[in-house]
């Protein structure tokens, strides 16, 4: 038991959950067929906003973290309206460029402390630890120290956010909005002709994506004590894309799995430290050869569903028929 509560493992779980959120954020834009690589940029806006609000203005974390999400959303409004006119690789590079521009602006601003970054950011675990102490759990609970307890609480909190997002995404899929997204992804022109307001829906997906990335960034800032412009470079943008592509961008479970694997993989490869990157690169290539659609696709889900719940199959089909008709 104690071995599994090792702060090293707990920290990796935290990174995994943050990355899962980032994977979900890119899933929202992919659901409308837009490849947006601006998530690292939105993440940085969320992180800096929340860190500065809590550090300089003394705002409590439960207010500053949502504020980070809102700030990312505001910025998404500024660039989203022209950006949704772009498609395919143009959108990808324009949003990637947006992330770079944000990074350079952060480098040049006084309040963000340039390349030196912000240190001493109030940590979520410490805050929770204080709360636990005031609840009289200062000596821990059932053999678990207060530090482990607060780390576990942070994980619980992050997991709640991820579960909520997954639930939201699943509900979305079967809603009017989700069907509009799917129609746009399938064929934008056809969707437009049949009366779907494509610009509005694409913009909405863009906002949702930015908001989630902003929240993830804000949470990340408060579990790592320090943020600097370097954390949100081109590499981060590509990493987030990889979550979705490796796991599978068509279903919500894909980015989750991708985030899990890609967070864990570098740690597992630590034993072969010198060749870590090479193996990582090789795996990406091999992966694309065998499963370019990602590890999980709709077929995978259907297959597993029919294997696990053979009885539910007919019901599923009935639902499918109804929604088709």
């Amino acid at each position, binding site marked *: 038991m104690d071995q599994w509560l*090792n*702060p*090293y493992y707990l*920290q*990796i779980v935290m*990174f995994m959950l943050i990355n899962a959120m980032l994977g979900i954020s890119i899933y929202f834009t992919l659901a409308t067929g837009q490849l947006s690589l601006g998530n690292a940029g939105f993440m940085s806006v969320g992180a800096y906003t929340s860190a500065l609000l809590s550090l300089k203005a003394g705002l409590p974390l439960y207010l500053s973290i949502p504020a980070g999400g809102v700030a990312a959303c505001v910025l998404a409004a500024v660039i989203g309206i022209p950006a949704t006119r772009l498609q395919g690789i143009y959108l990808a590079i324009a949003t990637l460029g947006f992330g770079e521009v944000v990074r350079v602006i952060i*480098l*040049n601003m006084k309040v963000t402390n*340039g*390349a*030196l*970054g912000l*240190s*001493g950011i109030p*940590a979520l675990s410490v805050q929770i630890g204080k709360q636990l102490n005031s609840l009289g759990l200062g000596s821990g609970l059932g053999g678990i120290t207060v*530090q482990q307890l607060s780390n576990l609480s942070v994980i619980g909190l992050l997991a709640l956010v991820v579960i909520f997002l997954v639930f939201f995404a699943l509900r979305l899929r079967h809603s009017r909005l989700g069907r509009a997204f799917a129609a746009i992804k399938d064929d934008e022109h056809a969707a437009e002709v049949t009366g779907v307001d494509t610009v509005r829906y694409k913009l909405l997906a863009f906002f949702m994506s930015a908001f989630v990335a902003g929240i993830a960034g804000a949470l990340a800032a408060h579990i*790592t*004590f*320090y*943020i*600097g*412009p*370097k*954390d949100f470079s081109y*590499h981060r943008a590509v990493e987030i894309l990889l979550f979705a592509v490796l796991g599978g961008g068509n279903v919500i479970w894909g980015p989750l799995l991708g985030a899990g694997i890609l967070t864990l993989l*570098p*740690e597992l490869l*630590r034993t*072969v*430290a*010198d*060749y*870590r*990157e*090479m*193996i990582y*690169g*090789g795996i990406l*290539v*091999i992966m694309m*050869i*065998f499963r370019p659609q990602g590890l999980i696709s709709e077929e995978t889900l259907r297959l597993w569903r029919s294997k696990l719940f053979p009885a539910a199959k007919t019901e599923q089909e009935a639902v499918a028929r109804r929604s088709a008709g």
Partner: protein
Amino acid sequence: MISMRKSMKKFGAAALAMLFTVTAAGCGGGSTSTQGGTAAGGTAKIGVVSYLSGGGAAYGEAIRQGLELARDEINAKGKVKIELVIEDSKGEKNEAINATNKLIHKDNVVAIVGPTLSGEMFAVGPIASQAGVSIMGTSTTAEGITDIGNTVFRNSLPESLAIPPAVKKAKEKFGLKKVAIMYSNNNDFAVSGFKTFEKAIKENGMEIVTTETFADKDTDFSAQLTKIASLQPDAIMVAGLYQEAALILKKAREIGLNVPVVGNNGFNSPQLIKAAGSAAEGAIVASPWYPGKDDATVKNFIAAYKAKYNKEPDQFAAQAYDALYIIADALEKAGTTSDVKKVRDSLAAVKDFHGVTGNFAFDANRNPAMDVTVLIVKDGKFTELK
């Protein structure tokens, strides 16, 4: 049949890809980290977090080499036995956090050397502090590093001690009146160096004609230097690392800008002279590390380093080398290889230590107290500027 042939082809391509990964991994040469001998008896496990792959790998590699040389020497002497557990941080915050957590909580190291960047230290310092494990930066020069917690140490000289003497000496020597500043604005170390430069220049009553920035890994400096040349400063002050500094020196001399160039810590490397050649003449830097020093410790270190790695050590290697000796010293005095608290207290009490970077002691804030020498490149060598 067709699908089978297709999958065969797929397989072939994948096999090729796999083969490449494996062969490439194989031909790298045997530089494995020391994994042998689990903390048996008197062996102290020291963790290392270093920037070993990615843009700053040149610096992380020098640090690792300095440490490994020191480890071999210390183990050969036999007073304390040290085992290094080396982790790569790739210069990324999250990687550094994971590496530090692993070292503290999985490998149970008694102290940590590193990480390479100040930004990484801001992220991992609190973790080490919370666990009570001493962590010592050998290249983290930014302001406020040791305020993170009382187990955070450094033996790298803060900019505030190195830059002002260099600026002052250069002014006295060359009668500088107006200067231009250049710094790398995406490097925390250089930005903090720039701030110190700015202050020191003002204190010495000189005028700043322009401040230009560049970025790490830039190779083209013609635009900035052309602009600077047109303003005719008496000297250029540069805060950056030696790779960029060498290119700046070369370009400056190429366009006829033959004024003295004062650098920060990043200039202090034989690589600067090697890369810039004759263009390095007149580069000035203040540093505790001076390879030409008439000192047996320094001479032995340089000879041993050259014998082992076939190149000249730089400041990064020298400071890392000293760092491990300081830790060994503390371990010996503490008389333990596992009690992190005793090691910390013993480390904080280190004084009168004589290393390759001179006489050394920690001050009350666990910052180094040491003497600096102002150096100038003359005839292809760092010599003391008198």
